[in-house]
């Protein structure tokens, strides 16, 4: 039972950074902009969040600083692709590399330092319920906010006028422009949201999940986010499911190591990546479904004047 509690509670925490970044990327991609710079934006967010927290002592300041910097980085991507019509793939990769460099510059003097992790919320008696309490009610606030974010993103994308506009622009920016929709503005907003969420996701890694700054600590999670969005076929619940699957696999890896089973550690470390991608690929084979949900203009250069 202890193992189960460990895995469930750990999964929620391990998936949180992914959830933030993936919801942001999903919104950006729904509007038709592929952002491959997520890894760099998460890394920058991680460094910035850590430094801001160290200097101010405030988690709010830390997360805000990470969100602002992530958003600023993504704005470079927005300007390059929406104003100068740069190729989305090339621009995203370049900004991702810029972000990684920026993160090591920001965090240079803090390398290897630690901070006090984000405290757990106190739910009073709820936290003391056996099994359920330690699983669900001994988490920090960002874990709960990430769950709220899933529902908000789902509601906005599928149930609101704004979501309709985003989906329409993602399918055909040319038609949207002809209808008088503000294509560039909406896309820039979506990309900026994506950058801010990636920044927060990164900051969660460095100030809550493993409260320390080390260069390269994002370790490919930004790429997992990109994969989750695509393999989750741009459907919010599926992308969230993918994030939790990835989280649970990485926890399983730790538990198996704790059991002392003799499985090579390299094999164990690739498992979360492999299992997540296979699972999502298997559940997203329905072509009709994919066509209804995939943003048709994703990655294409904007052709409006």
């Amino acid at each position, binding site marked *: 039972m202890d193992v189960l509690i460990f895995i469930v509670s750990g999964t929620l925490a391990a998936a949180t950074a992914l959830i933030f970044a993936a919801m942001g990327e999903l919104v950006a991609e729904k509007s038709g902009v592929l952002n491959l710079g997520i890894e760099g934006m998460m890394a920058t967010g991680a460094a910035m969040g850590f430094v801001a927290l160290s200097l101010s002592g405030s988690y709010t300041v830390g997360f805000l600083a990470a969100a602002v910097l992530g958003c600023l980085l993504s704005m470079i991507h927005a300007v390059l692709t929406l104003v100068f019509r740069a190729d989305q793939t090339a621009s995203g990769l370049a900004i991702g590399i810029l972000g990684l460099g920026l993160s090591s510059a920001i965090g240079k003097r803090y390398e290897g330092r630690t901070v006090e992790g984000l405290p757990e919320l106190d739910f009073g008696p709820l936290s003391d319920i056996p099994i359920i309490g330690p699983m669900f009610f001994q988490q920090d606030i960002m874990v709960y906010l990430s769950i709220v974010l899933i529902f908000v993103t789902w509601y906005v994308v599928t149930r609101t*006028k704004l979501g*309709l*506009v985003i*989906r*329409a622009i993602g*399918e*055909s920016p*040319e*038609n*949207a*422009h*002809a*209808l*008088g*929709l*503000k294509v560039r503005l909406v896309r820039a907003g979506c990309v900026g949201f994506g950058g801010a969420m990636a920044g927060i996701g990164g900051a969660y890694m460095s100030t809550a999940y493993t409260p320390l700054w080390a260069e390269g600590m994002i370790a490919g999670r930004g790429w997992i986010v990109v994969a989750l969005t695509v393999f989750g076929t741009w459907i919010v619940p599926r992308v969230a499911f993918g994030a939790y699957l990835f989280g649970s696999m990485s926890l399983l890896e730790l538990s198996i190591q704790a059991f002392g089973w003799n499985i090579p550690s390299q094999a164990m470390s690739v498992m979360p990546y492999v299992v997540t991608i296979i699972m999502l690929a298997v559940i997203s084979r329905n*072509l*009709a479904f994919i*066509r*209804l*949900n995939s943003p*048709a203009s994703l990655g294409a250069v904007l052709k409006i*004047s």
Partner: protein
Amino acid sequence: MADTPLLRLRGVTKAYPAVLANDAVDLDVMPGEIHAVLGENGAGKSTLVKIIYGSVRPDAGTVEWRGQQVDMQSPLKARDLGIGMVFQHFSLFETLTAAENISLAVPGSIAELSERIRAASAQFGLDVEPDSRVQAMTVGERQRIEILRCILQEPKLIIMDEPTSVLPPQGIAKLFETLRRLASEGIGIIFISHKLDEIKALCDTATVMRGGRVVGVVDAKVEDARSLTRLMIGRDIAAPSHAAQRGDGHAVLEAAGLNYTPLDPFAPALKDISLTLRSGQITGIAGVSGNGQDALTRALAGEILQGPQDAGTIALDGVALGADTPDQRREKGLHFVPEERLGRGAVPIHTLSENAGLTTHHAGLVNWGMVKLGKRRALAQETIDAMDVRCGGPDATAQSLSGGNLQKFIVGRELALRPKVLIASQPTWGVDVGAAAAIRQKLIDLRDEGAAILIVSEEIEEIFEICDTIQVMFRGRLSPPVQVQTTSIDDVGLAMAGDFDALALKECAHV
């Protein structure tokens, strides 16, 4: 009040690097008037419309809206003023429902809009189901949504860009009824077309354009088709000579029991298609686009290959070639001219002589894997001469040619190899009238030499002009063939809407 035009253009000019698209164009549209803008492809109609709708800025000239000069800086501005547009290639979002599509342009919740949509559909006879997705709809339904979306914005002026090109004949009559009703409510309508009979039937005034200029503003009711043609083209066009059928009529290409389910779940499937192409005959496939014509031509040309487990057969002169690639089929004498000229018919950035080599390399152009450049160039030059292609010679890139000239080149390239069977998809689509007539004449000449030809066309008039037998495609099924003399445009129109019996009855009656 009645003397103030709704829209007044004066001296509107727009130059693109290679061409003066609009040269000092004047246009007046009164409230309640249906005003035709008539011209060939490339005459500048589309540019003019884009300027009115704000998606292109003119280099010079003024736009007045109800007596006030305005700067039409974006489609948003045009829409705010009360200008609506129904696009030729619709501007709908496929993954959204009808009501969602309309809600992007008209304020209100989906529920409120659904009510208004139902009310307006009844009022204007535009049958639209608000909750269904655009993806699964026919082009007719899509156009109705586009028009409804336009009407619900309560515009003062509606621009319709070639609205009839996607409709079966019966649908056109219904559309005209709707437009007349709108005009009677004081809405001005600009109707873009190159079809003279439609303009005579519907419009009050016609502004005729040629080469970017207005060459005449005429009373559409008074002019006849001949005088309009002369204005539009600058000369008379000879109808192609259509001699009686030649050749012995033996079956050259036979397809039987073709079935195909595309990967894309919203693309039409082929259902039990059987088709025989005979020597010395042109078979025309009529139908509204999107009913499986694309899959059929791909299957015949070899872009869709038949697997060993597929039921149907395709045979050329009695030899099965269902598993052959397009290249192998060309070598055996089955040639294909696709619908898209740039990208599928020709490589845009390659020269004409390189493009000629793509499909003709079997004709002694290759020696030990090396291309004979001189011979290829000569072949391209021959094609250019034979088809009267206006271009900068064999070294001009494909994309530098106008649509009509490139199409003449592509057709000529296949003709040079003396095909046994030629399959041409929309051979005159978007081609100017002169080039279209030349292409049709070349196809008839090829028929007279004994080739079997298949034409897929959305233009029913074209099919009646050059074909010997007609078959109609609807939702992946192909009607039985009928002789062109024994049927009428109306019957084919009914078949295009799914009523194959309309054709079959005639077939029996005349046997």
